């Protein structure tokens, strides 16, 4: 069953320079979808359009069959969440304050978070392993810790679909592992994820579905084994790519091929 779907969306920030051209993407339930592509191919824009904050200039986005942009933003935010790339806010909120913001769509008109919200927030913080930093100012954390905080916020939002924009960009392997394992686990429990990434290897490990974009268009779309091949990737990234198979456990690794030297 398709939860979230983009149908033939197009977008351009500047006239005549399309960032997205006729892009269609379907997010089934309980799945993890990886979005790969070179810098500037439109991944972030697509995620913003999918999340409901940027109306497409052509095409439509549907949530359970209904036009995403015709439902109220509060209801939409209860169903679809977006974890942006990092940023630094002006005020020194604590980690807990930031993650608590994820509960906003579930609050009433003039409401403030209650005990239940606090419990969910604490659980989300626990899930990304930041319990020790809960009361520390967000602005004082390392890049990776901030990223984990934003992910926790996304988790606290308790949506059906969570879109993550390069969530592991600044994380060490251990934290990457932790985040993606959590994602996998939650996917099994009725949350779907769309993850944009520059790491094809984690796509190999965690994705149910991979979409490759180039210059605003989708050039490949399918299961990881089908899409993450040398011809597709080298075309997409415009560089030589080598896929290494380990016959022992049928795993693969994707490596760039060196062009100079051995």
């Amino acid at each position, binding site marked *: 069953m398709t939860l979230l779907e983009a149908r033939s969306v197009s977008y351009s920030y500047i006239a005549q320079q399309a960032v997205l051209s006729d892009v269609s993407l379907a997010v089934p339930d309980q799945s993890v979808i990886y979005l790969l592509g070179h810098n500037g191919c439109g991944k972030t824009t697509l995620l913003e359009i999918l999340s409901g904050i940027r109306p497409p200039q052509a095409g439509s986005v549907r949530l359970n069959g209904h036009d995403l942009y015709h439902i109220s933003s509060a*209801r939409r*935010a209860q169903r679809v969440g977006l974890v942006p790339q990092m940023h630094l806010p002006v005020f020194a909120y604590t980690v807990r304050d930031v993650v608590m913001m*994820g509960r*906003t769509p579930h609050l009433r008109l*003039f409401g403030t978070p209650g005990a239940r919200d606090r419990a969910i927030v604490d659980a989300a913080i626990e899930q990304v392993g930041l319990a020790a930093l809960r*009361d520390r100012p967000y602005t004082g954390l390392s890049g990776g810790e901030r990223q984990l905080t934003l992910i926790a916020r996304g988790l606290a939002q308790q949506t059906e679909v969570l879109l993550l924009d390069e969530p592991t960009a600044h994380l060490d392997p251990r934290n990457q592992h932790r985040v993606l394992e959590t994602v996998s686990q939650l996917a099994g429990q009725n949350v779907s994820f769309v993850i944009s990434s520059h790491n094809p290897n984690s796509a190999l490990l965690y994705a149910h579905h991979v979409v490759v974009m180039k210059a605003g268009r989708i050039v490949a779309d399918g299961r990881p084994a089908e899409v993450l091949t040398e011809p597709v990737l080298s075309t997409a990234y415009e560089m030589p790519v080598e896929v290494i198979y380990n016959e022992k456990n049928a795993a693969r690794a994707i490596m760039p091929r060196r062009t100079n030297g051995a």
Partner: protein
Amino acid sequence: MTPILSRWLPGACVWLHAEHRQKALYLLILLLPLPAAIYCIGLGRYAIPTEDVVRALLDFALGRHDASAGPDIVYNLVTRVRLPRIAAAMFIGANLAVTGATFQGIFRNPLVDSNILGVTSGAGFGAALMLLLVGDPLEVQLAAFFVGLVAVLLAYSVSRLYHSAPLLVLTLVGILVGSFFSSLTSLLKYVADPLDTLPAITYWLMGGLTDVTLGDIPALAAISLLGMVVLWGVRWRLNVLSMGDNEALALGLNPTRLKLLIIVCSTLMTAMAVSVGGVIGWVGLVIPHAARTLVGPDHQRLIPATMALGAVFLLLIDTMSRTLLPAEVPLGVFTGVVGVPLLLVILRVNRTGWR
């Protein structure tokens, strides 16, 4: 200060959580205004014993005052001079402080106060114009109020013409509109009769609560309380709004509408404050910072704390202004002279202690 305390109460400091301390500080701040008001109403250049103050207040509150018994200087001073001033100081202080905090939030800029969209400059111009033309105090207040609103309307409308970088454009246009009205005010000062109109304009612009009467209080209280309730209601959303428009959108808010609501509310409150008390600077800038240092940036606590601190701050300033010297010192003088060292002290104390 803090090292002394930790020597005295080593045991207490051990089991008294940072969190409990912060909560205690927060509650203390919220409870400050009422005792401060009660204390300050007993102060003044005309010495009135405490029991007479209390009696006058009770008579006033219960409507027991017997006007036919002849002029009662104590009753007059307590209810017609001190009481309105204290009420006005607290409402205006709370207004300016909380609107400064909310604007800092929605503009994501800790260096702004509610005049960023020009409401204070516009109100100043409106007042100066009325002083020049008519001089009637009521009309001066009304003009200040409405021209303040017009200034913000102008800033907001003009900024909507530009579609890129809305926040930056709004800030810039606001500054421009503010400067525009300030220049017009200078023009009025130039044209004004230097014997009487010009000093009147200058004194009005310097800010002061000398002429506040009981009649000014109902409108001020109504708008202040209304505005404060609304801003208190959206205090949580301000957190989200201050993270950025896109994130606010993603979290299900409508940032444009919310900002509009906050701007309208804050502008009404500020225009009301300026029309009664003139231009009082520093409060909208300094108090939110002080509050943030004491209770943290979370607007759930920041908004109420700013209101309380703003009320108490201006109350103290006004009390000083009316008791220290025979002549009144304009409020604008004290807010800077007192506010800056106070802020420095707060920053210092907080750094060595509580967290």
